[in-house]
């Protein structure tokens, strides 16, 4: 039986560094100013580029909901999914791309960055991020465990945590 949620997903520093490096290069190549990675359930994984002046956690949640809703719309019209979304504003725009059906990459850019360039550079970036994820999961499978269970035997400490 599938076990949903927290126990199925973990990131270490090495994974994060690999993702960050790829996206930082993408930002430099396109001139987009910021990026954000969230998982499909709306949890924020990382932000890159210029610091965001809004709450990235909220943004991650709303983006995932937006993406999921659009996924369902795609299925209703006979498509498997929409792998990308583009929201264009007067000054700021966002391009959202699915990564291996596990993560969402959001690219934020102003009107100095042409959308065509973002689209052009997006495909190799998604492929590279997918490769990073595959390596992370393969590593986890080979070692037989994703990470040491940090909460092993923590029953009493958990009780204490909620003693308020």
């Amino acid at each position, binding site marked *: 039986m599938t076990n949903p949620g927290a126990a199925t997903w973990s990131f270490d520093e090495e994974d994060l560094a690999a993702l960050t490096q790829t996206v930082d290069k993408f930002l430099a190549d396109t001139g987009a100013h910021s990026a954000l990675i969230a998982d499909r359930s709306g949890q924020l994984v990382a932000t890159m580029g210029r610091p965001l002046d809004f709450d990235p956690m909220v943004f991650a*949640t709303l983006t995932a909901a937006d993406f999921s809703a659009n996924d*369902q719309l795609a299925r209703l019209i006979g498509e498997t999914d929409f792998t990308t979304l583009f929201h264009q504003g007067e000054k700021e725009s966002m391009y959202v791309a699915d990564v291996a059906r596990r993560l969402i990459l959001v690219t934020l850019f102003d009107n100095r960055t042409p959308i065509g360039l973002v689209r052009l550079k997006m495909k190799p970036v998604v492929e590279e991020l997918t490769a990073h994820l595959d390596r992370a999961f393969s590593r986890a499978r080979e070692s037989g465990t994703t990470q040491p269970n940090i909460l092993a035997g923590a029953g009493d400490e*958990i009780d204490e945590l909620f003693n308020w």
Partner: protein
Amino acid sequence: MINYAAREINCKIVYYGPGLGGKTTNLEHIYGKVKPDTRGKLISLATETERTLFFDFLPVDLGTIRGFNTRFHLYTVPGQVYYNASRKLILKNVDGVVFVADSQIERMEANLESMQNLYDNMAEYGYDLTKIPFVVQYNKRDLPNAAPVSELQAALNPGWEHHEPAKARVTPDPYHAGENLIDQLPTGEWVEKAPYFEAVAIEGDGVFDTLKAVSKLVLKALA
């Protein structure tokens, strides 16, 4: 999600239940009571008449354990029947569920429909509600037409049979003296119920007891 880089444990809890049962009220109370530096913004995607359209969302930090910050992402689903597609989306990758039942006797049918809907939507993802952290809240206990808790329990939380040897023992309900969460029937089967809490969410009664219970179950499931 366990983010080892940021030293954070992020868990998702969904408040489910029939329309106008008190799901959003639970989150609003939590938002109003917890310290501002331990919570984020309360996001409500709602209609003009304040009925939840897509979801409410509130991130709350509930403390640090073994050097990891525990952050709980609380969501509510829209309760109205025709928003089922949205409810399904919100349930994805859930770690714990709170079912907020409306205690009013006239809402028993709506409660039952919503509970069945929860089981059905979970099953579509391949999730088994009897195997994940799950807590029931009987809200609106202050109303004169509130059904007795025993009736609500019989209808909504009668228990499920389990076959796990580790759980094959009478287990008292830590929240209700004299009651058990796991019991053995005269015919030998072991039956487990979800923990339940009485609440008057609009006053805050029972809101934090419910949140603490489900959060504890979520972390213990990881341990």
